[in-house]
């Protein structure tokens, strides 16, 4: 790490971080085990009652194009700034792509009425999508305060600019104007501030090349099936630099990203893994090595995945990597990485051992055998019961719709999984206790997390392939205390990439804000923290993306707090 890259005020903090990274940071003492009482929380699927009548299509028609298997992710965003999270479902289209097929189906934006119901506002807001959609992200790319939407599609992607209050919160397709358009088979996206200039740049993952004229044919005996992703040539990803004037420059080549040709990109997340103040990226690649793209600070990136221990599984295998999340699940002050994978592969829990050094320890944390039969996609660490420990959700579902005919170790439709953090980073599957929503079986893909009813606990929206979505409302999670942190940055208006540390009742929790994560999806931009029995957060420390660190004190629990950059007490001590 070169301290000269950083502004002077951060040099000492950086040195402290370096020391912490080298020595391993401060591990928390073993906490008392979480009581093994009944869960106390139930998730109920209320999609139908809520009016979410969206029906997903993956374009399947018996041709088994691999494009079908990726669809689709889901985005949570408060597009109309009314304080309630709305939902944007990305949809597939008939294949091979055609203008007529593209027009026959639509993505769907549902506005949260605030009373437990949603209304389809796609037509009136103008965000139908223009092609086969895999996923996307939302971010205020033009810095006007409202959230815009980038949709990843097969073929040209689309960027919808939110016209804000003055424009009735309608969206305009500004793809051509903005120049952020990846014409390949895009899967996931992440908005992040690559160069610390306050505006949001964009990384887009691409999956593979599909030839609709000469599609691959694969079968297991008489049963036709999708061909393995390893038989498809990978597509490289794209990196777009925000010029700050509403347009982007494609810097894929100059940044070094175009040299990475072996990845079939799926989920992506922006995270400052080495704590040097520059946002890096983790890309989950299917049947290829994951990328950990270290930001060199000069609009260039280098892949340090293998050197860091996150490119491959614990066995050194290239897994079928799908979704990703980054969080400090064991409260040791370091951000860890969780990646979902294919059947007969363990999901990977890359625990950060020291700066830039990770170890896949899924089996050591209760995430071993229960995941083997599953094909896992959307995921997130979140505190479902507000006890202050991050739990884990995984959305599952096979892509082979006839798998049972030739492989009885798995099924097409699969249950979701909920793992409770037992208080020391150890996870225990509690799916069977979490309500009927966890017994239902789907072929799920993206999952997005947020407090949709603003009652203090985290709800989950799941996109189900070839079906209707699930809205898993959290009932009972708000018995314990909580706090929601909404960041308001000066230039980076939502504080994307900020690090937030909440201390309540003597316990500190760390979280990073991402615009795009999981499986090609996007979560609530308000950071949720469960506070157990604490009545307030004694301190909330924010490290803003452009470097300012400040502290907010005595924030009452059970409230949403909007923290405005520059209004806190400047931090006068290093964090680690």
């Amino acid at each position, binding site marked *: 790490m070169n301290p000269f890259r950083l502004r002077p005020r951060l040099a000492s903090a950086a040195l402290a971080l370096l020391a912490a990274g080298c020595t391993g940071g401060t591990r928390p003492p073993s906490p008392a085990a979480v009581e093994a009482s009944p869960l106390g929380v139930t998730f109920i699927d209320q999609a139908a009652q809520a009016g979410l009548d969206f029906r997903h299509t993956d374009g399947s028609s018996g041709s088994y194009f691999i494009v079908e298997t990726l669809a689709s992710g889901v985005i949570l965003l408060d597009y109309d700034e009314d304080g309630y999270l709305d939902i944007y479902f990305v949809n597939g289209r008939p294949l091979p792509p055609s203008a007529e097929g593209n027009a026959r189906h639509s993505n769907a934006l549902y506005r949260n009425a605030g009373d437990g119901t949603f209304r389809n506002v796609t037509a009136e807001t103008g965000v139908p999508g223009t092609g086969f959609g895999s996923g996307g992200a939302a971010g205020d790319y033009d810095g006007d305060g409202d959230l815009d939407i980038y949709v990843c599609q097969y073929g040209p992607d689309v960027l919808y600019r939110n016209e804000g209050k003055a424009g009735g919160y309608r969206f305009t397709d500004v793809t051509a104007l903005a120049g952020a358009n990846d014409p390949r088979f895009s899967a996931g996206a992440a908005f992040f501030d690559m160069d610390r200039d306050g505006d949001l740049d964009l990384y887009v993952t691409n999956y593979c090349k599909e030839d609709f004229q000469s599609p691959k044919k694969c079968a297991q005996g008489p049963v036709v099936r999708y061909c393995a992703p390893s038989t498809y040539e990978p597509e490289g990803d794209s990196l777009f630099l925000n010029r700050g004037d509403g347009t982007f420059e494609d810097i894929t080549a100059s940044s070094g990203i175009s040299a990475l040709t072996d990845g079939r990109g799926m989920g992506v997340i922006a995270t400052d893994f080495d704590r040097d103040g520059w946002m890096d990226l983790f890309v989950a690649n299917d049947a290829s090595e994951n990328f950990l793209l270290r930001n060199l600070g000069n609009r260039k990136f280098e892949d340090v995945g*293998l050197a860091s221990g996150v490119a491959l599984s*614990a066995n050194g295998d290239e897994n079928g990597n799908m979704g990703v999340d980054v969080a400090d699940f064991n409260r040791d002050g370091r951000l860890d990485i969780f990646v979902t994978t294919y059947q007969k592969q363990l999901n990977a829990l890359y625990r950060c051992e*020291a700066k830039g050094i990770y170890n896949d320890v899924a089996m050591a944390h209760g995430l071993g055998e*229960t995941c083997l039969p599953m094909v896992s996609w959307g995921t997130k660490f979140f505190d479902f019961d507000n006890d202050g420990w991050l739990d884990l959700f995984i959305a599952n579902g096979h892509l082979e719709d006839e798998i049972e005919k030739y*492989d009885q*170790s798995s099924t097409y439709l699969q249950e979701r999984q909920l793992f409770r953090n037992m208080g020391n980073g150890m996870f225990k599957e509690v799916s069977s206790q979490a309500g009927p929503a966890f017994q239902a079986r789907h072929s799920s893909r993206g999952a997005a997390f947020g407090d949709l009813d603003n009652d203090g606990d985290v709800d989950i929206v799941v996109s189900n392939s070839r079906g209707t979505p699930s809205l898993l409302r959290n009932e009972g999670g708000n018995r314990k205390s909580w706090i929601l942190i909404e960041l308001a940055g000066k230039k980076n208006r939502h504080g994307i990439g900020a690090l937030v540390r909440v201390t309540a009742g003597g316990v500190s929790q760390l979280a990073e804000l991402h615009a795009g994560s999981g499986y090609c999806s996007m979560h609530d931009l308000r950071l949720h923290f469960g506070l157990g029995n604490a009545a307030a957060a004694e301190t909330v420390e924010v490290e803003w993306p452009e470097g300012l660190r400040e502290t907010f004190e005595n924030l009452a629990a059970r409230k949403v707090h909007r923290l405005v950059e520059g209004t806190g007490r400047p931090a006068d001590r290093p964090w680690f």
Partner: protein
Amino acid sequence: MGRMLRLAGIPAVILAAALLAIALPGCGPSPDAALPPETDLYAYSLAVARKVGLVLPSQSVRSRFIEGRVHERFGFDEKALEIYREVVKEESGFADAYQRMGYILSQKKDRMQQAIEAYQNVLRTKPGSPGVYSRLGLVFMHLGRFEDSHRALDEEIRAGTGDAETHYFKGQVYALEGKHADAVESYRRTLEQSPEHRMALYGLAQSLRVLGKTEEEKTAREKFQQVKRKEDEATRAAAANRKDGVDLEKRRFASETWLDAADVYLTGAGGAKDPRERSDLLGRFLESVEASIRLDPLNPEAREMLVQHFRHVGDVDRAVIACERALEAIPGHPDLGQAAYDLAGGILEDEKTRARADLAYRALLAAVASLPNHADAHRELARLILFKLEKPELIAKAIEHARKAVEIRPEPPNYDVFAYALVRAGRGREAAGVLQEGIRQNPDDETLKERLRKFQESQSGAARAGPGGGPP
């Protein structure tokens, strides 16, 4: 009785046919009935498995087990489990069935405890079964029960059946516990037994990285990448082969089924008292092995089985031919190379075949081609040429192989043979130099010193003596 059956409404014709079927043996499915076509290798393999039970009714449980294996290989886990359960119900000591159950159950959600029970049953019915404690160790690891995992793996090691995998699993458990120094030790033990164990190389690099041993980590990582590249190329080549429509994986399954059948026929032949029955079963054994090879020419086990069989029955000609064909099909395969080396040794040791030096020569040629770093094979090949074949035109070859032996392992016997080969070629001065080098490398060895002394005496006019102590 006929009246009673008539009263029961059973037509007479059917009754007669039924009685005939019961009375006449072989009226059920014939063991020599045609197998289903190979276009459906699943049905074909099931028929191969069932045939075993028809040929050898006394082995019907084994035949059922092989049927279970077919289901398992082709992905029908639940069917396989059902059959294995029937097998152990029929024969409670059938350890192999418990072992397969354990394997299948260990891949299933929420059935790991059943997997543990299955493996424990293996140990109960066949104590000391190699590999079972290692599998138990792996299951415990998946469950996060690291102490139990260590206990099981240590048991395997204590029993002397611990292999590279056992040490690798131990390394993994240590790494999961955060005991990276111990993990490094275990990974190194893995690599001692299996230097290109890709996963151990990766694990080693990971643990070294955590320990901050940068240089060692870099070496391990580079070696890992090298091995991975080789494996990826092999995978790509195999995938390319599939383009012509041949499903190699299914052919391998069918090949393995034939091999399972061959095993039973061979065992049956060994126990048969009737020479005709014995001959029939041996014939079926050979047919099975050849079918196995035909379906999967790259199946080393089938090829090795053939070599060993011919060697066992004393048909060294066919043993050597099988060896050569095996290594032509699968060049460089270490087990086949070792089999060739052992075959040569067996030919030379057995007084019935000792005279067939030509065959031993061919076997050793195959061995060194397959195992270029096998010092003993090079040396023995040189010795064979020098002492058995008596073909002057091969002396240069003898020198080449003897030199190779010395390069690989600079030990006294290798120097001895090298020097003698040079003497036979009329290159005495070089021979002396080799002996001197051998003495330098092995200063405590008296044999080479004695050899050199005698050679120098012979050079100065004393009677020429060949290397004493070696075979004529």
